[in-house]
């Protein structure tokens, strides 16, 4: 027979085990990674038999990320027999709202979107909720309405890692760094900038300029001015694809030895790294094709009755001159690299 003390210890251990297992149990109840969203063969067959229609709204189609995201979604939807309605808001929140409402009006089976402004899509999400249409969003949860999940690239970690590589490369205390970004009202953009600020701070550097714009032309002008105004500038962190291109060009034109880290690794960035004569130290690559596939899988899983976790993070790739060939195959599966031509 167990003593009182033993029973107390055994009971305590059981309670502790139960409490410690709770997060695991909760985690198991939802699908929380892109891999976990993958449909089994039987599930895929079930989805094909249902003849579903999903809406796929992008905030723009002018950058490589969006194009790759859409291509990934379209390819996977095609494989699953899902009819995919793709619309591009061209950076206009009002247009996106109209597109969203039209999809609700059509009674689609699910909507995936990269919001122009997550704070401004909530009213439409509420209307989708009223019609029981699941909404899966990239970037950040809306202020109103319920979404099945928010998918995000590892924005903070990705930009932190790329910036840390830049600071390592520079290797100087108090190194002057400029940020070239995008004036987007999205959490992911703020996370990227925070990642840069933290990595620069951790390495003892200083941010001397923060500029942003939507167009590469204007970004080139901004970068040129920043370089001109700061003779001791050591590095530029560009927090989106067109800013990477603009920073690269501005530094080339200046003829100065200024290192670059970037968020988004796209064809121009890969070609820069392939050239072997670039100031780019590291690029943080989002896995857009993976996200496009996960968007379709996620909505399909919800249709089949699964629950997605509140947030699904897809990891970024740290692309450098040493590993760019390998990273290309992961980031753009099945796509011939441009240097192969």
């Amino acid at each position, binding site marked *: 027979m167990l003593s009182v003390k033993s029973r107390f210890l055994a009971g305590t251990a059981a309670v502790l085990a139960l409490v410690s297992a709770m997060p695991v149990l909760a985690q198991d109840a939802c699908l929380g990674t892109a891999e976990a969203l993958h449909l089994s063969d039987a599930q895929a067959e079930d989805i094909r038999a249902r003849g579903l229609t999903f809406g796929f709204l992008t905030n723009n189609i002018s950058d490589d990320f969006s194009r790759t995201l859409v291509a990934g979604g379209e390819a996977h939807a095609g494989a699953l027999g899902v009819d995919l309605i*793709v619309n591009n808001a061209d950076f*206009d929140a009002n247009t996106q709202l109209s597109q969203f409402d039209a999809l609700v009006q059509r009674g689609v089976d699910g909507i995936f979107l990269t919001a122009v*402004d997550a704070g*401004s899509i*909530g009213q439409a999400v509420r209307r989708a909720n009223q019609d029981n249409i699941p909404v899966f969003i990239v970037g950040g949860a809306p202020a109103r309405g319920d979404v099945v999940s928010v998918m995000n690239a590892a924005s903070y970690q990705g930009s932190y890692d790329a910036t840390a590589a830049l600071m390592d490369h520079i290797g100087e205390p108090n190194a002057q760094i400029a940020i070239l970004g995008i004036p987007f*009202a999205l959490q992911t953009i703020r996370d990227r900038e925070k990642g840069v600020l933290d990595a620069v701070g951790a390495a003892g550097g200083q941010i001397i300029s923060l500029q942003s714009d939507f167009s590469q032309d204007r970004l080139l002008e901004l970068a040129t001015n920043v370089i001109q105004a700061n003779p001791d500038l050591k590095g530029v962190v560009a927090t989106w694809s067109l800013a990477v291109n603009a920073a690269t060009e501005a530094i080339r034109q200046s003829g100065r030895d200024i290192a670059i880290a970037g968020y988004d690794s796209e064809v121009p960035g890969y070609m820069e790294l392939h050239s072997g004569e670039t100031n780019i130290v590291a690029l943080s690559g989002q896995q857009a094709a993976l996200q496009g596939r996960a968007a379709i899988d996620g909505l399909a899983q919800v249709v089949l009755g699964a629950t997605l976790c509140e947030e699904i993070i897809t990891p970024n790739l740290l692309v450098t001159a040493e590993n760019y060939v390998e990273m290309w195959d992961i980031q753009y599966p099945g796509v011939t690299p441009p240097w192969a031509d």
Partner: protein
Amino acid sequence: MTTVAALRMARTRRAAALLRDLLPYAALVLVVGYFAFASEFFLNTRNFERLVTDSATLMLVAFGMTMVILLGEIDLSVGAVVALLSVILAQLMAAGVGWPLAVLLVLLAGMGIGGLNGVITVLGDIPSFITTLGMMAIATGLAFVVTGSVSVAIMQDRFLDLFYDDRLLGLPVPLWIVLGAFGACGLYLNRTVAGHELFALGANQKAAALSGVPVKRRKITVFVIMGALVAIAACLSAARLGSGAPGSVPALTLDAIAAVIIGGANLFGGRAFVSRTLMGAALIAVLNNGMVLLNVNIDAQYIIKGLIILLAVVLERLAAGAR
């Protein structure tokens, strides 16, 4: 030119004038007919209500733009000012100001901005193109600065319901607001001395001045009216988005100008009609809605809208000699 050639030219111009006058109505009927045939989701009450509420912002701004263009002026700042006023509205409400007072303050701010555009244009003898271009840049910058580029959520449900979801006599409130503004603008232009003077002023400013039309006062008044309509549009836009968004309506200015042109207005002044502008705005709204329902690529949407605008301008120029 021979008499026969002159007669032929006159007939061509009259035909172009007729086509131009019919364009917004005929195009709207054709487009509605096509979408009703092509999409099972288009012709129903719910979509119609959504279409009306979604296009109310455009229609209000287009009414104001009709009067501005009637004077031979232009206002390029409207989209940016709608965004700025919507974030001011949202921030006022976030700061605890009740929605009626916030709406009133935004209305006054809109009239102030419109008045400023008018005063600088008229008293400074500066082309409105330049004045409003400057105002557009200022309003865009201010909207981003005051919000830190982050949209401001509106949590006062009464405001959101009233300006977006509520109904009056079975129709959405935004539709009543549009009808009210349409009626007021129509009455002002067609049933008041001041309205008639705007047509004279737009057709020939010097002659109007010599006839005793108070040119400066009339022009500034029109910009103030434009500002008031922009402010109401900002309230509807904020209610629709559920937030004040700094970059929310980049296409609004061009769509409003397009609606006026499709309505047969002369960009150089003297000729513009609120009723036809309403048709022009409705056409743009139906195109926006229907093309999404049919899953038409947004780039193709731009091309289609651009072709309709070009057609309207060509007809207007061809018909110019008919008057």
